[in-house]
């Protein structure tokens, strides 16, 4: 009990430890890679231990969403504006703390093996520490402004890590793309936060919760909906929702452990968490919720269709993340914070596992990424094969793996609200199972490449895989049985239940989709090319990611480049022309005047006498 109380009252240490690790590595251990890694792992491990203590304290101490533990200090106060900085611990943030610190901890351990021999080894661990620190701090934020500051820090870290291989053009471009795309959303988010401040005079989550019902009763919900939609812009960009998802697949340019971290626990779930954290705002605004739900639903299906035809293993996983994040948004949009957070947690486990497994595979195959150039790896990489298999079953929603429970909760919640969205979600489940099967069977079954001699990865990399595999098995059923919804919820207690019609049908469809994938890519009884040839337009659309990137390029070439050309012409010809011609006219005038200053005495004398004659004639004329 002592440790639990201690953890709760020192929750501020959780983000601070990795932050200190970042500073230590940058300023002291930069040239000592082993010590740098040890520092990062120790800090993240301690953070996880504390987070576990906090979670236990929340459960045993009766801390609920209505009665959170808050500890804060005044950050600054000026007339009409007082902003605090502190920690807000409730079941939602406690769950996030566990997920983020655990995944970051495992990713750090994995990276010791994966990044071995990399010249930027220390830098990598410094970034990872800062990334985890920002995310953990964001999770604990007591107000929207603190959250926004750390939200931006998360964005910065993703920029640094995606561009980790900065000597590669593609990595630089991907980092820029991620930063600038999310910036569009951040702009909306900041406007939304400012609007909230103007309307309520506070950004504190607790105060907002208290003030909101009265505000809606007196002033209506029109302006609030605008604020909510502006805030939603942030998550659309950060959590890779359509149409701002374009940066996420490119984010795989970073080292694979970073992809795992970004896709599972930090960057992209920040958006989902933001909506969950400000749910008291969204919960009373049906139109805003409908927007969130449809964005989520469309994203889920859209990304799943793209994932069907991608060839690079990390791209498949990246679109899978986009799709799964769509699920989480969808769940939030239909009013089930519990389902969304539950899926966020299970997804963190199996998506981290999938990425780390993909990293293990690519490591063994010397960075081959194309799944059609892999094959037969189940013989040489038994642990990776087994753990990846568990992750695939988990994401496909096969019971009793983790994904089944969370996905079922989402489907259930959606079915109670909107039938069209339910069909979209159910179709996405089938597609997810299929593309995951496609990836898995291509990589691990079939004929091995005789030119490659893959070896199983080392212990540093296998340990996190095994831990995450265990979590992908029990991460759904255990919280489900323990009443996840009693703690992580918004409004009344959410009683866990399984609708057998929905769960059964989705499971059957998933198994059928996996079986189809096996027949097409495992046993090769069906030709994938023949199927693709039957639906060429769909295949083309999917393989080219619905041309969204090209669309943006077109928009950019028309508006940005076109406008730039016009402005450039104006600048060169009118602005510069004005200045240049002005100076040229001065030069000409000076050229005329300088002829008078020849320095030749006879010319001066000539002028003098000419002037004298003119004067005499003129004076004589006057008289």
């Amino acid at each position, binding site marked *: 009990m002592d440790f639990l109380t201690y953890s709760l009252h020192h929750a501020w240490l959780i983000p601070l430890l990795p932050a200190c690790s970042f500073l230590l590595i940058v300023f002291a251990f930069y040239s000592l890679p082993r010590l740098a890694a040890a520092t990062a792992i120790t800090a993240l491990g301690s953070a996880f231990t504390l987070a576990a203590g906090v979670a236990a304290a929340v459960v045993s101490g009766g801390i609920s969403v209505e009665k959170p533990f808050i500890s804060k200090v005044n950050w600054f106060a000026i007339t009409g504006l007082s902003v605090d900085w502190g920690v807000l611990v409730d079941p939602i943030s406690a769950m996030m703390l566990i997920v983020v610190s655990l995944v970051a901890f495992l990713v750090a351990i994995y990276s010791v093996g994966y990044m071995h021999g990399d010249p930027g080894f220390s830098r990598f661990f410094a970034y990872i520490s800062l990334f985890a620190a920002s995310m953990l701090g964001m999770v604990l934020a007591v107000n929207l402004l603190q959250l926004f500051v750390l939200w931006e820090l998360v964005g910065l870290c993703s920029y640094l890590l995606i561009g980790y291989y900065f000597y590669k053009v593609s990595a630089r471009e991907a980092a820029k793309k991620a930063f600038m795309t999310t910036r569009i959303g951040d702009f909306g988010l900041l406007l939304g936060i400012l609007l909230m401040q103007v309307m309520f005079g506070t950004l504190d989550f607790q105060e907002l919760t208290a003030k909101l019902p009265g505000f809606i009763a007196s002033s209506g919900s029109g302006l609030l909906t605008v604020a909510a939609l502006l805030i939603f812009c942030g998550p659309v960009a950060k959590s890779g929702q359509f149409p701002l998802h374009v940066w996420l697949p490119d984010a795989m340019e970073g080292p694979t452990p970073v992809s795992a971290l970004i896709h599972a626990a930090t960057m992209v779930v920040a958006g989902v968490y933001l909506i969950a954290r400000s749910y008291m705002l969204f919960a009373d605004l049906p139109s805003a919720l409908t927007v969130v739900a449809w964005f989520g639903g469309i994203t889920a299906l859209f990304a799943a269709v793209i994932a069907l035809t991608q060839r690079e293993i990390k791209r498949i996983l990246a679109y899978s993340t986009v799709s799964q994040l769509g699920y989480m948004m969808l769940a939030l949009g239909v009013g089930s914070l519990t389902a969304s957070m539950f899926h966020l947690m299970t997804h963190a486990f199996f998506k981290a596992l999938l990425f780390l497994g993909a990293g293990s595979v690519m490591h063994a195959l010397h960075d081959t990424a194309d799944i059609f150039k892999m094959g037969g790896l189940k013989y040489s990489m038994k642990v990776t094969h087994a753990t990846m298999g568990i992750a695939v079953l988990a994401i496909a929603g096969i019971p009793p793996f983790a994904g089944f429970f969370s996905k079922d909760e989402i489907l259930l919640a959606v079915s109670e609200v909107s039938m069209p969205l339910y069909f979209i979600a159910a179709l996405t489940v089938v597609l997810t199972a299929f593309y995951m099967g496609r990836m898995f069977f291509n990589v691990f079954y079939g004929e091995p490449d005789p030119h490659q001699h893959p070896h199983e990865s080392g212990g540093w990399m296998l340990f996190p895989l095994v831990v995450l595999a265990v979590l992908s098995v029990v991460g759904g059923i255990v919280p489900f049985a323990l009443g996840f919804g009693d703690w992580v919820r918004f409004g009344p207690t959410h009683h866990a239940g399984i609708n057998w019609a929905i769960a059964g049908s989705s499971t059957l469809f998933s198994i059928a989709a996996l079986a189809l994938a096996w027949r097409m890519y495992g046993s090769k009884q069906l030709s994938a090319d023949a199927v693709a040839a039957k639906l060429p337009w769909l295949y083309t659309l999917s393989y080219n990611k619905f041309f969204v990137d090209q669309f943006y390029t077109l928009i950019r070439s028309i508006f940005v480049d076109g406008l730039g050309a016009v402005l450039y012409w104006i600048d060169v010809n009118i602005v510069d022309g004005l200045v240049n011609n002005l100076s040229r006219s001065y030069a000409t005038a000076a050229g005329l005047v300088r002829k008078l200053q*020849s320095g*030749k005495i*006879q010319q001066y004398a000539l002028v003098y006498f000419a002037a004298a004659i003119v004067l005499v004639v003129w004076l004589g004329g006057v008289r």
Partner: protein
Amino acid sequence: MIGLEHYLTVAAGLFALGLFGLFTKRNTVAVLMSIELMLNAVNLNLVAFSRFVTPEVATGQVFVVFNIAVAAAEVAVGLAMVFAIYRDRRTVNVDELDWMKW
């Protein structure tokens, strides 16, 4: 009968001659000599006016003496400068000496 106009005409011719020399001569010494010519034209005017307009006072003649004194001093200074310039520049051609614009 020779009157004032004849003297003034000669002086004007002398002055124009000096002016012409002043503008056209390249050699500084020749330029100085042209200035002497112009001064002499002025002196001639002064004497003529004194003789024909105010014969009772000798103011004009006195001015001429002053003028001759000043001209002598000026030539002394002028020649000294010409020598100094020649030592510095190896030339006394006025069209090559354009450093008055500094």
